[in-house]
């Protein structure tokens, strides 16, 4: 084909590709990104929406260890060696504004969600 035809085809294809990707990005439901903080420092960022299989990981500081369980769309503290286990009792964190907190270990797991409430009064 003539060069001009190729150019037109390439431009048309690129524009279509851009439009398609824009559509995909905009229609993707934001399911929140989970942040795990140890003593105020970010140690892990997890996009809960793109989790396919459940997995666990540990966060260990000089204060102790928490075992975090991640499943598609949600996260929780499965086990910990802190005294009261209130972090485990808090259960699953999905899309609420209330973080999971292990006070003795200074561990915080929170969802960063642009559409959700800014805080929860309780």
């Amino acid at each position, binding site marked *: 084909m003539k060069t001009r035809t190729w150019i037109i085809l390439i431009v048309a294809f690129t524009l279509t590709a851009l439009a398609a990707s824009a559509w995909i990005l905009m229609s993707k439901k934001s399911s929140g990104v989970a942040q795990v903080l140890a003593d105020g420092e970010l140690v892990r960022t997890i996009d809960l929406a793109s989790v396919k299989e459940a997995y666990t990981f540990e966060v260990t500081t000089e204060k102790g260890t928490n075992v975090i369980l991640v499943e598609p769309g949600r996260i929780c503290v499965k086990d910990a060696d802190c005294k009261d286990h209130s972090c485990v009792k808090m*259960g699953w964190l999905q899309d*609420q*504004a*209330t*973080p999971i*907190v292990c*006070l003795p270990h200074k561990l*915080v797991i929170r969802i960063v969600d642009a559409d*959700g*409430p*800014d*805080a*929860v*009064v*309780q």
Partner: protein
Amino acid sequence: MDTFMSFTAYGADEKLLQEAEEIVRGIEDRLSVTKEGSEIRRLNETGQADISEETAILLFSTLLYADMTRGALDPSIYPVTKLWGFTTGEYRVPARGEIEALLPLVDYTKIQITENEAGTSKAMLPEGAMIDLGAVAKGFTGVVLRDYLRQKGVQSALLDLGGNIQAVGKKPGGAPFQIAVKDPGRDGYLGVLSLDLPDLAVVTSGAYERYFEEGGVRYGHIMDPKSGRPAASGLLSVTVIHNDGVLCDAMSTALFVMGEERAIELWRKLNSFEFLIVTEDGRLLVSEGNEGRFTKDSGCAYKAEIVHR
């Protein structure tokens, strides 16, 4: 205050947030009932103590609220709270005789604040009486921080002090902060409050978070100062909105003790704060001035009722 706090300040630097943290610790050092060197501990142990101007102001405000609520809020309830084990976690249901022996000590009218010759303040308690400003400490901290941040040029911040909310201004750009209100009966929200005015504080009180169970009965941590027993006035939670965090803290506790009728009566009389009240029989009472700012959650099962002035 041994609780999780989260401060989000727009346009603040690391240094300012560290200063905020220090302010919180300073207040805790002065107001703690257990910490060594705390003004309140010294007051409780010796019956009288010099107190800082800040503590004097807070104590004075608390006594005003005690008066306004006819003793539904009473900082001298502390010996009773201790008796039930809420201060140590060693919960127990005391015998009637034990409670009655302590009730004479619960009397906010006997707490005195006087001025020393040097101009400093002194607080005095009758023999055996002990106070705890825990019911207003977080609200107070929020107000102190708000004023400090404003003074330092911060025009927009959201302070979450263990569940007590204090806003500085509104969101950058003027949008209201959206505050979800916890549903006392299920794992979800009652709805969302849109803080349409700047500098608002929101505080919720209820027995649903701190309680123990014995013999199939649930005992909440909010004491009724008149009976010396956990308040049982037919309410599940009370949320108060106003720009004074101390008022919100004080009123949410007091209204929970007072029950629906007395709470609404006081709300009408004072004409200042707004509320959300969840009753045990499944109603969500929304004060008239709150109607425009509250959006009920679709999953909330309570029946909403507007309470008119």
